[in-house]
């Protein structure tokens, strides 16, 4: 056992492997603190990632020097705020390789992104007897809105099942598709298990039946490149606060022709061309979907977070994160009585596990006492938990500022849990 551990430690990725993690960590002020007397080990990145100085300063600059409302003032500050806000949209467009900025709608997170599509597209185009396909891996955010729609419209929700590793059964998906399939909504990466979904195949097959596809990219966006044109997805949504931007920021991409024919999401200011008591003419894209004053500072922060990712190098960050996940997987696998939940061949960022005889909340509390932040619970994915006959799991999730030493601390802390309970 000791020999295995030594061997594993010897394969630890080192900073010389092209990633200077200590330098990167200096960009994240939140990491410089102790929790319960121990240095903070933040392994809850799949819930929300931390914010680098560059993003904090950009948000602060807006508040200190540019704060005003967008799209309406002729005055200096409003023009500056509008330029910064629309500049962030331009960055998002390049980040996801959209054809046009008007296809990038700002929302307060992926949940709002899904809801926007459900209301704007679903309520207009999906009716009685129609079918919507989602997957067994979905977060509640990509289940509940579609259930609500099905209930309202008399449509039917169908679910792509998964195997014991946490991989979708693509043959079963093919069997679910038919002429009544009017929409497909799947996650790009499971937030509870880390499984990567072959979304390209999902999209291609759905298109044969003319069904548009929404991809929930909340867990993919922090780790890998997004190219909405290459994927040919109809909608793609992600949260800013999971890609190193403040909460309240996020994007839903939609193909322009679909967004054009959809209903607006919310009504109000900024989404109109003209209003009379008889009729309102809606604004052009993207404003049609952005009623009211948005989270301006947060969305400008999202633009800065994209800049930051480009500066540090997304490919290098992804390669390093991959090493972290492999290392953590190997070390946890070597622990007796610890079981990894979700063993898909292709995984990103997330390591869910259970310890025999210990409830995940007790794991979470004991880890927290050692300064280690993990998520313990159902991860807003109760059907995934049910599939594995578990009430909950503990989940460590990684970002490019985590270190192999932190993973070692996690392992020590898990051993401590076992010591307390067994």
């Amino acid at each position, binding site marked *: 056992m000791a020999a295995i551990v030594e061997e594993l430690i010897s394969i630890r990725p080192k900073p010389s492997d092209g990633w200077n993690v200590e330098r990167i960590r200096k960009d994240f002020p939140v990491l410089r603190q102790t929790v319960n007397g121990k240095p903070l080990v933040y392994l809850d990145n799949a819930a929300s990632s931390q914010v680098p100085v560059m993003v904090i300063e950009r948000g602060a600059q807006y508040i200190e020097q540019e704060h005003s409302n967008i799209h309406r003032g002729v005055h200096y500050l409003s023009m500056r705020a509008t330029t910064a806000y629309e500049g962030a949209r331009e960055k998002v467009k390049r980040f996801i390789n959209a054809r046009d900025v008007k296809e990038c709608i700002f929302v307060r997170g992926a949940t709002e992104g899904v809801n926007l599509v459900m209301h704007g597209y679903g309520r207009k185009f999906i009716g009685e007897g129609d079918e919507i396909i989602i997957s067994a891996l979905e977060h509640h955010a990509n289940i509940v809105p579609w259930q609500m729609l099905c209930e309202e419209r008399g449509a039917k929700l169908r679910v792509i099942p998964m195997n014991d590793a946490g991989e979708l059964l693509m043959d079963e998906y093919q069997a679910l598709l038919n002429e009544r399939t009017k929409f497909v909504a799947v996650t790009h990466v499971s937030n509870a298990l880390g499984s990567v979904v072959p979304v390209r195949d999902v999209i291609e097959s759905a298109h044969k039946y003319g069904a548009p596809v929404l991809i929930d990219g909340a867990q993919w966006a922090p780790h890998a490149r997004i190219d909405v044109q290459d994927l040919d997805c109809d909608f793609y949504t992600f949260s800013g606060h999971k890609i190193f931007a403040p909460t309240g920021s996020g994007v839903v991409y939609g193909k322009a022709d679909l967004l054009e024919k959809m209903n607006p999401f919310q009504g109000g200011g900024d989404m109109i061309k003209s209003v009379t008591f008889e009729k309102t003419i809606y604004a052009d894209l993207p404003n049609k979907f952005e009623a009211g004053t948005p989270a301006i500072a947060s969305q400008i922060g999202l633009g800065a977070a994209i800049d930051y990712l480009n500066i540090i190098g997304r490919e290098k960050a992804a390669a390093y994160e991959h090493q972290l996940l492999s290392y953590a997987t190997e070390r946890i696998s070597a622990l007796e009585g610890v079981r990894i939940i979700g063993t898909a061949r292709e995984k990103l960022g997330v390591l869910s596990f259970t310890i025999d*005889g*210990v409830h995940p*909340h007790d794991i979470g*509390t004991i880890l927290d*006492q050692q300064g280690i932040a993990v998520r*313990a*619970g159902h991860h807003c994915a109760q059907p995934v*938990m049910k599939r594995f006959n578990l*009430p909950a799991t503990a989940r460590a999730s990684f970002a490019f500022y985590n270190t192999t030493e932190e993973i070692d601390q996690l392992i020590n802390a898990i051993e401590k849990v076992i010591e307390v*309970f067994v």
Partner: protein
Amino acid sequence: MSELSELYQQVILDHNKKPRNFRKLETANRSAEGYNPLCGDQLNIYLQVEDDQLKDVSFEGSGCAISKASASMMTQAVKGKSKQEAELIFDEFHRMVTGRLNEEKEPNQLGRLTIFAGVRDFPVRVKCATLAWHTLHAALNNQPTISTEN
């Protein structure tokens, strides 16, 4: 780690492993289901109430060590008590784990339940410790289900 050993005392770990009165009560004439949607803890409390006395108490369910041990020790603490006495212990227990009762200085009926005093240092775990008690309260007052989030 001292707070931690305060929370996970040997007695609590023992009740977690071998919960007492952990079964469905065939003679029950009251029951209620308690649910914590935030963490998924779920338990059922069964009561046999006769002439205002809790003749028998049992529980079933799944949850963390704190919630399970709390339910187990609660069944022992309230068995044979009157409804009023059980509600009084609930009130004292609730005040203790939320830091509003000093079990060492103020007179109380908590007895061995003071072992849960450490929960007050872990505010997010208070709901785990009180779920069984809220469910007992619901059963005594003929509410079929309770949720910690309502």
